[in-house]
């Protein structure tokens, strides 16, 4: 429970008014190994929700720049007139469509990895009871699959950029091509962050960290990963429909 909900203060067991009345009961896991994982999970999720906000602000500002620039006439040096110089970029949409499906599938596998580890951590206390065995289930490596799909997406984006460049659209060719590279590039950069988080999650799985601890990492990574997929769909739609 969040302390925010506490309306009735608990009974104070502290000292008199003159002494700092501090509640007793120290030694709860400070530096120890028995942290309360549900609190950690809640805090990590909250931190992620807060952390996603500036990412949204970043893309909101880039979007507004994109739309404003699109409608802006510019001075042409030859005719000395204001002209609309916005060149619609032909997106390599076949590659991008393929990439999008890879990312959406990876979002699904990530969700399966998250549900797996949630179930595993819920069962963890049961396993600790002596004499109880839940059997040795083989788990499908959803996390690894997600990682591979994520890297595939990044490689696919690279191919899309190459295709754009082959079509004569470089970063500085025209304002529209600058924005295409900028938006897709910034998304890729943020996705690399997700890939690093996945590698970390995979590494602590191999290192046999406590399942609850892995759950926190995988859970937060999965929400971030879903956000990345949504963000990509948004960027793709923006570039496709507002060009």
């Amino acid at each position, binding site marked *: 429970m969040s302390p925010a909900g506490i309306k009735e203060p608990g009974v104070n067991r502290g000292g008199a*008014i003159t002494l700092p009345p501090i509640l007793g009961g120290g030694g709860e896991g400070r530096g120890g190994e028995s942290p309360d994982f549900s609190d950690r999970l809640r805090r990590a999720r909250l931190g992620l929700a807060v952390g996603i906000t500036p990412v949204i602000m970043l893309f909101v500002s880039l979007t507004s720049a994109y739309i404003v620039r699109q409608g802006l006439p510019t001075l042409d040096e030859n005719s000395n007139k204001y002209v609309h110089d916005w060149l619609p970029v032909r997106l390599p949409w076949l590659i991008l469509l393929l990439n999008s499906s890879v990312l959406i599938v990876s979002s699904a596998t990530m969700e399966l990895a998250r549900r797996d580890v949630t179930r595993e951590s819920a069962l963890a206390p049961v396993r600790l009871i002596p004499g109880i065995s839940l059997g040795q289930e083989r788990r499908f490596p959803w996390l690894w699959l997600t990682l591979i799909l994520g890297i595939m997406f990044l490689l696919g984006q690279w191919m899309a950029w190459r295709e754009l460049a082959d079509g004569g659209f470089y970063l500085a060719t025209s304002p529209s091509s600058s924005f295409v590279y900028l938006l897709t590039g910034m998304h890729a950069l943020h996705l690399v962050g997700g890939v690093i988080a996945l590698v970390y999650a995979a590494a602590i799985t191999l290192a046999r960290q406590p399942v609850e601890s892995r759950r926190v990492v995988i859970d937060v990574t999965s929400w971030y990963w879903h956000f990345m997929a949504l963000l990509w769909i948004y960027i793709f739609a923006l570039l496709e429909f507002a060009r």
Partner: protein
Amino acid sequence: MATTAHVHAHAAPQGFIRKYIFSLDHKVIGLQYYFLALTAVFVGMFLSLLMRIHLIWPTAQLPLIGEIKPETYLSLLTMHGTIMVFFVLTTAPQGGFGNYFLPIQIGAPDMAFPVLNMLSFWTTFVAFLVLIAAFFVAGGAPLHGWTGYAPLSALSNSGPGEQLGADLWITSIALFCVASLMGALNFITTTLDLRAKGMTLMRLPLTVWAWFITAILGLLAFGVLLSAGILLLLDRNLGTSFYVPLVVVNGQLMGHKGGSPLLWQHLFWFFGHPEVYIAILPGMGVASQLLSTFSRKPIFGYRAMVYAIVAIGLLGFMVWGHHMFMSGMSPYSAFAFSLMTMSIGVPSAIKTFNWLGTLWGAKIRLHSPMLFAIGFVSLFVSGGLSGPFLAQPVLDIPLHDTYFVVGHFHLIMGVAAIFGIFGATYYWFPKMFGRMMDENLARIHFVITLVGTYAIFMPMHYLGMAGQTRRYSQFTEVAYQTKLLPLQTFMSYAAFITIGAQLIFLFNLFWSMWKGAKASDNPWEATTLEWTTATPPPHDNFGGLTPVVNHGPYEYNVPGVSKDYVMQTDPASAPAH
């Protein structure tokens, strides 16, 4: 109770490096931020000293520096502004005091994400080094002002400082954005998730409210500045044209085409205006805390104070256009921005009214922190009153880019925020270092600083009304401007004295750290949680214990209680509210 304990997963560090350099302890990180800001403020002040010298003796030969050229003057003002806004006004009140006291005031053993907290400080530190490095590269520091308007800032041949120096400047700002975002994330999560039992939102000290709202502003604003900076770097180095239109520099047609300089202004000021509140809100929180404590009265209208902070934060995002009345914007947008800007006067007036209401009829204890808190209110009012002038397009057009603007923002954003920092320093020094600062030196420091800053910045309003423009390096050669020179000379002398007086503060700070009188745990007889714990606080703030809060933050002279203050952790049997 277990809610807070395990956050403090890291044990008390042993080695020097883990304890003082790469520390995870929010208190050490807070001090690191504070001393970074202290270094930065003296660098920034030194730059302003050079500018004040140059303005009245433009051809003076300075030892080691020589004569200050006009372009050097522009570098000085750029770096002065950047250092002061980012590395002092954003760093000290939020990163410094916020880091140190927010967790203690809400009864938490540390920030929610200690590692992120450490990264945030060290990124800020690197950002500062990168910025200072701009002085030492070919071409020197940039000259585009702290607002970095494109296309001046976007072309490397637009001036001597616009080569590598400008790239370093943008890199530094971008790093600072990332660091501030990490800090804001920590502040928000900590405030929402780590409050002690009984610490409801309406029992938070107003300092915590101010830090919390400031963090939200930072979270929403710095991402936008980051994207603006990325576009600028691309324009400068990869040939894109986000900000640069078809432009001829020194008779040479540049390769750029079709960019919009206004785009930079919109993105920059969407960050820049909230940044003003990022600088001043923590000062408001500190002023509220100090006025209540030293008046021995509850803060007048606690809820109104909270709502006013929230309202100022919210409105702060809707007024960025008032920096751009001169940009040729539609009069209808100008009217909308003007109206929104004026409406900020309402929550500001509520705050001022409540501060005065707190002082009204009180048995005031005029200790040095209180002097600075009252000074804060004075400067906030004097600086704030020129705001409505600048908020109206018809008045802003003649006053834009004159000394009137410089006077306005220095009083309200610069000096008022600095008074908040001074007040906080004198108030919390005993808790941070276990000793008291010297009261007499503090009073001398206060009097000279208050009179001195008014003497520097008040005349600027007259200069502005007389039409003297800002950012001009020399007024001595223009017949009309020379008539205003005596006033500039007066301001320079006032600046020399005020800057000199800061050495008193510096001496007092360091002398008191080792030689000051020993402080008790609660020397000011204040009520918030930091005064319930030992001085200085132990590694986990409460020595393995978890405080339980039963009272609001400002219960002074509650009827029916014999003592004149009720600590937040006192038993609930003492009458509440």
